[in-house]
């Protein structure tokens, strides 16, 4: 038997000798591995951002929110005479009172969008003024970047103060004013002193009200004191419709995660009964979403694996084909080597190692290609991608394995060559 190092260096020599052919041969593996790596990275990134979004809502919560029902203008409850001036729908104080006393409910954080237009000059900014309860910060996984959060006393006194999201700060103070905290914010008739700036880095997006980053947050008591039960919403230029919504979002925190299914079912039953007339609410259970997402991901991974193995199979067959051609082309070399004392094993290993090196190098190039592709996607399509070390090492091992599987037969054929052929061919 030859030394292993000699076999390897010989294989490299042969591959270098046929650079173009080696490259073309391993293209199948290169693209196979490349597409697998990039698709895995993209799907992993998508999964990660979806999961973190779900997780940032909090898996120990049940989110119920107000959903604007479809108001039938011709056959409303008030008869056929006119469109009702006040739209009364959604989660109300009774729901709050009831849910608060339900078993396994730890606490509820409520958010109400006051629907006040936030404008700079004539332009309406995509910002929301929301009245929230004390648990808001924690339950929406926000953190303070500067300033402070509301105290119990602020709530008790209905203080006219606010905390703004980081996007709000950017939009309202585009020039990067230094003393944002402490300055006053005017909306409509009210004026609020900014006491803090919050940020949410998880991409949390709550139903109806959106990201905390786009919110101007005021204490719920202040909201009640200034705007009362009516939140107004401008409907075009002329009409200003009054909307009676007590709560847009309730973040129901459960005490025991094990019974979250049960709790959500009871909540559903209650709301079905209490809002029997119109379905003006909806419920999200992040834990369910998470589980569902994980199931989807599992299926996706299986499908990806199947596609990957097909592409590697095709690549492998291509390699086998070329190696078989190479064996008959190199009959003379094989015969000479056998005459000079090569064992069948030496020939077998020479060709096998050559194939394995080819596919492994192809795998390496493929990994580079895949990482490059996912980087391009990340940069230009602005999708999060995440290349995992497991995938990289896995692809490398699999491409070597493809070499072994599809290299064995050609190598065996090479070893079985009759050395007489070389002398007879003279």
């Amino acid at each position, binding site marked *: 038997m030859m030394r292993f190092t000699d076999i390897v260096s010989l294989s490299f*020599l042969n591959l270098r000798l046929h650079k173009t052919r080696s490259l073309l041969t391993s293209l199948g593996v290169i693209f196979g591995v490349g597409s697998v790596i990039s698709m895995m990275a993209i799907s992993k990134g998508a999964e990660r951002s979806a999961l973190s979004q779900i997780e940032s809502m909090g898996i120990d919560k049940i989110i119920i929110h107000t959903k604007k029902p479809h108001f039938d203008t011709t056959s409303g409850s008030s008869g056929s005479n006119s469109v009702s001036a006040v739209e009364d729908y959604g989660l109300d104080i009774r729901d709050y009172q009831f849910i608060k006393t339900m078993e396994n409910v730890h606490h509820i954080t409520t958010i109400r969008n006051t629907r006040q237009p936030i404008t700079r000059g004539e332009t309406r900014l995509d910002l929301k003024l929301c009245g929230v309860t004390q648990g808001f910060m924690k339950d929406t996984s926000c953190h303070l970047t500067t300033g402070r959060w509301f105290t119990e006393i602020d709530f008790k006194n209905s203080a006219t103060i606010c905390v703004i999201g980081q996007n709000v700060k950017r939009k309202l103070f585009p020039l990067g004013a230094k003393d944002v905290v402490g300055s006053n914010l005017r909306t409509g008739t009210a004026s609020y002193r900014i006491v803090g700036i919050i940020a949410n880095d998880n991409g949390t997006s709550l139903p109806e009200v959106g990201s905390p980053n786009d919110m101007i947050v005021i204490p719920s008591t202040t909201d009640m004191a200034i705007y009362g039960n009516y939140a107004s919403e401008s409907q075009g230029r002329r009409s200003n419709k009054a909307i009676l919504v007590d709560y847009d979002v309730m973040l129901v925190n459960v005490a025991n995660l094990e019974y979250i299914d049960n709790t959500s079912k009871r909540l559903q039953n209650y709301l079905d009964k209490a809002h029997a007339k119109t379905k003006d609410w909806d419920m999200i259970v992040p834990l369910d979403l998470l589980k569902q997402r994980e199931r989807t991901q599992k299926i996706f991974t299986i499908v990806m694996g199947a596609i990957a193995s097909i592409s590697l199979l095709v690549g492998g067959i291509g390699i086998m084909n070329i190696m078989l051609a190479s064996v008959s082309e190199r009959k003379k070399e094989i015969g000479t080597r056998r005459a000079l004392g090569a*064992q069948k094993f*030496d020939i077998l290993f020479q060709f096998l190692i050559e194939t394995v090196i080819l596919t492994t190098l192809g795998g390496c190039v493929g990994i580079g290609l895949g990482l490059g592709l996912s980087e391009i996607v990340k940069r230009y399509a602005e999708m999060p991608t995440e290349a995992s070390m497991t995938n990289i090492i896995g692809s490398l091992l699999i491409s070597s394995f493809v070499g072994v599987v599809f290299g064995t037969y050609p190598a065996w054929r090479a070893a079985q060559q009759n050395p*007489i052929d070389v002398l007879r061919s003279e």
Partner: protein
Amino acid sequence: MNDDVVVQLRDIRKTYNPGGLAVHVLKGISFSIQRGQFVGIVGTSGSGKSTMLNILGMLDVPTSGNYFLEKVNVATLSDSDQATVRNIRIGFIFQSFNLFPYLTIEQNIEVPMIYKRVSPRIRRARALELAKVVGLGHRLGHRPTQLSGGECQRVAVARSLCNDPAFLLADEPTGNLDEKTGNEIMALFHRINKEQNVTIIMVTHNPMFEPHYDKVIRLRDGRIVQTKPTDSVDELTGPLSGFGELPQDRMAADAKATLTTTAEQEGTSK
């Protein structure tokens, strides 16, 4: 029994059977070759000399008869052992040189040593030494394509010598060369034979080189028609003295031991 018999053939027959029609290529060949002899196997095309060469080189097996290489009946060896014997006991030289074009001269000379697992350092030293013997010590880094035919054949000779074989087996070594270069190669063989006492078996149809040979075996139609100097009748047809009474396997075992000790000696001597 002469201990210095390198090759002994006894009633070698080879029959090919293409499509049910038996073709008798060798019809009972017997001869022996002493260590240090320069033997020419001559004959026209179709005389069976290529088949003879394949059998001597252990690339083909005879249909019947025995081939003893340094007292070993090669028929008893496994495929792997035969490869080992080819590696360390036979030095092949081909008509078209059969150098590897992608290897340098030095690497080409090293190939049989690679299969013998000689360490790279010793390989290089030996390659240099042999390249000097054939007069190419200054061209180790070149590739075969940069060399003339005669130089290529010199490289092949150096390669065949690298494992100190029992004999060189040269197949029409001058067949692809012009007359002058051919003569130079013959002179090289002659020198190696005389100075280093290397046994050489050369298969050729060229009658010009006959004066070089210590022994000429002339084949025609699968039979030896002439041996110069004439072998004794005993050697040609008679029983092998000293071999006949030994059991076959015992012989093989003894001979294998000889082979391995030779290999070890060579391994340690470098």
